[in-house]
């Protein structure tokens, strides 16, 4: 019997994606939310959850990392800053990011953010290099508003990353977006696949086919290999198929392995894109959820995978996206519907 981390040296981080509100001042067509209001916790409860994150990170011997998001987290600006200050004080929280649509960030906000000790970066979203492509999904004026936010943040020395959700309409705009982001001083671009859930159900016809994803990922990998000024984040399932021997490419889905999502009322999901409740952090605590959830145990064991994912030779660095499988077939252990292998 040996006391110690379950998988020492395998995962150094434990990631908490924390949605402190579902409220948002935008109504993006592809959003995983469905627009229904959710119960929100008061500041005392939020601080309690932050303390549990710190304690769990210490217990598991991992560096806790947090994304503070929503909804639009700036709608709860006072609580957002209280939480950030609280996370700054915790020894076992390495850093946190703020994921925002940027619409409520002005010049002063950039300066305030610069005073936060463990803020790694602020992530905003753009859906393409062109204003019309972005605004078609995120609403009129959102492109200009987001670019303005990037400028305010960069002017204050805040590191900025951008997320783009890949659809049939914007799949050809990645190189143009990289050029734009380079001009704006953005450090990283994350590319996410569209999962047709919540509002995003209305965009189900925009989900890329496996052959389209393959072509796009090959182009993105070529672009990334050219050392662009904006780092392309390639640690996502399926990227491993492009360059199986490149350690910077591909990653296991973090659901069940090194991440949890906390919703505004404390409900916990394996991943925000896999919205199956596995407990409530205030009622159950992280330990009971992490150790006791049958769903998490199912996700952890690749022998539970079905379809072509089950016998894939890339199981060590790709097990597909479980959320994509879930929303395609209703079975989160089914094969990744966008895999081209």
């Amino acid at each position, binding site marked *: *019997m*040996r*006391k*110690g*981390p*379950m998988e020492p040296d395998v995962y150094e981080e434990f990631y908490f994606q924390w949605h402190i509100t579902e409220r948002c001042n935008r109504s993006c067509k592809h959003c995983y939310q469905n627009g229904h209001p959710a119960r929100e916790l008061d500041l005392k409860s939020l601080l309690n959850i932050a303390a549990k994150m710190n*304690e*769990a990170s210490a*217990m*598991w011997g991992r560096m806790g990392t947090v994304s503070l998001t929503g909804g639009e987290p700036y709608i709860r600006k006072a609580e957002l800053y209280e939480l950030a200050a609280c996370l700054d004080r915790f020894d076992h929280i390495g850093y946190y990011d703020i994921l925002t649509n940027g619409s409520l960030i002005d010049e002063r906000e950039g300066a305030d953010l610069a005073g936060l000790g463990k803020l790694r970066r602020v992530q905003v979203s753009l859906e393409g290099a062109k204003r019309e492509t972005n605004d078609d999904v995120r609403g009129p004026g959102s492109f200009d508003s987001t670019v303005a936010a990037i400028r305010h943040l960069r002017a204050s020395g805040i590191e900025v990353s951008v997320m783009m959700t890949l659809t049939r309409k914007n799949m050809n705009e990645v190189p143009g977006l990289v050029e734009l982001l380079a001009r704006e001083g953005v450090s990283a671009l994350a590319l996410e696949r569209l999962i047709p859930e919540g509002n995003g159900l209305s965009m189900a016809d925009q989900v890329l086919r496996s052959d389209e994803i393959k072509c796009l990922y090959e182009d993105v990998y070529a672009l990334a290999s050219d050392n662009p000024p904006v780092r392309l984040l390639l640690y996502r399932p399926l990227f491993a198929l492009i360059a199986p021997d490149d350690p910077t490419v591909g990653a296991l889905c973090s659901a069940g392995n090194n991440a949890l999502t906390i919703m505004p009322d404390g409900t916990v999901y394996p991943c925000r894109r896999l919205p199956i409740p596995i407990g409530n952090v205030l009622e159950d*605590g*992280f*330990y*009971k959820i992490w*150790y*006791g959830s049958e769903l998490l*145990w199912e996700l*952890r*064991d*690749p*022998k539970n995978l079905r379809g072509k994912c089950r016998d894939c030779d890339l199981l060590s660095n790709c097990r597909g996206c479980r959320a994509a499988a879930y929303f395609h077939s209703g079975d989160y252990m089914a094969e990744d519907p966008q895999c081209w292998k």
Partner: protein
Amino acid sequence: MLCLAEGVIIRSLSETDQYYAFNTITGDHFSLNDTAFWVLDTLGKPTGLAELELAYVETFGVNRTMGVKHLREVIALSLENALIKEVTL
């Protein structure tokens, strides 16, 4: 009688052929060898020490003296780490 302490769960991970005990209240977690896993698994329901010793020797086909010695070491460690507790039925 001995049984698993409140909030303790044990797991066998088929992917890695490893065994673990988790305390869902304190967050403590332990890796187990196969005999420790067997002991804790058996103590999922309250079991008397004599009955446990007998079953242990029979299951692992070991010399009784050595088997009982090893079993008691596992029990002592498990009690020390609050994985099991003594109960009176």
